[in-house]
């Protein structure tokens, strides 16, 4: 194909040739992290629990996206549109958390009636 040589490498061509070993490696790491999150999940670590669980989940998700979904080899535009959705998710979360975490007791459903003391 004469025209194929003139073009920059297509996305398919940039999908680096590699064996199946990397898929098995990612799978094994995902299983290890799953065991880790179950193990630490039932410990009583207070506020650290949710932080740890979300960190492990994010690492697992990153591995899936990069290697199972081949984001590491994807074209720039594809990376951009997918990562954009996470950007907008982050913006939405930051906005809502900013509200929630700066609320005072009275605005929560669990609030007790206020005692202003004797009139």
């Amino acid at each position: 194909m004469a025209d194929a040589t003139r073009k920059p490498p297509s996305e398919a061509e940039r999908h680096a040739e590699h064996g199946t070993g990397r898929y098995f490696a990612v799978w094994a790491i995902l299983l290890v992290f799953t065991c880790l999150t179950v193990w630490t999940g039932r410990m009583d670590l207070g506020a650290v629990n949710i932080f740890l669980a979300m960190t492990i989940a994010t690492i697992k998700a990153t591995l899936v996206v990069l290697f199972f979904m081949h984001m590491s080899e994807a074209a720039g535009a594809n990376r951009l549109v997918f990562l954009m959705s996470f950007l907008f998710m982050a913006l939405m979360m930051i906005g809502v958390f900013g509200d929630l975490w700066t609320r005072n007791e009275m605005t929560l459903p669990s609030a007790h009636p206020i005692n202003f003391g004797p009139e």
Partner: protein
Amino acid sequence: MSSSDTHARHPYLAEHYETIEKQDHAVRLGMWLFLGTEVLLFAGLFLGYTVYRHFYHETFHEASRTLNLTLGTINTIVLITSSLSVALAYHAIKHGQRQKCLGLLTFTIICALGFLVIKGFEYQHKFAEGALPGQFYRFHEVTGPGANLFFTIYFLTTGLHAFHVIVGMSVLIWVMKGVWKGKYGPDYYVPVELGGLYWHLVDLVWIFLFPLLYLI
């Protein structure tokens, strides 16, 4: 002689694309865009979860402990393994191994069915206990404020996820049909790739749902 006569057109190249590379690029971009909207769909539910978890922290903690961690963990392993087999199926078709690809996709669909059956047992148990959403809640183990909200979110998120499992399975069966007919091979495997991408997304959502529902 026009240029379209000099080169034989790829059998799956649509008329409005010049080359199969351009078509593949457009198709991949469209898929990633769609996956982005899927992330945003679940993001709304995760946000709702976070807000109510903040309001009813103690009850959510208590309610999450009543879920079956063993079944949840098994389902996580089942989904991760099915993600591996889809990735391997993609690798197989790329290298022209049709039979291997079919076998791996069949294994993936068995995993998907296994996931749904296990989820079904979990649901059945919740129905029997009365751990149901909203006004149908009659579960005596967790009675704090917001208890029914936890199970509303549990059923909404896992239900929507299970629906995605069913859609993903259907997509993979459709892909299998194409592989069976010999439509895909080393020079054209984008449908296998995109079907696989959807399946990985299903796994991705579960990776976050699992700790949030079972482990908090």
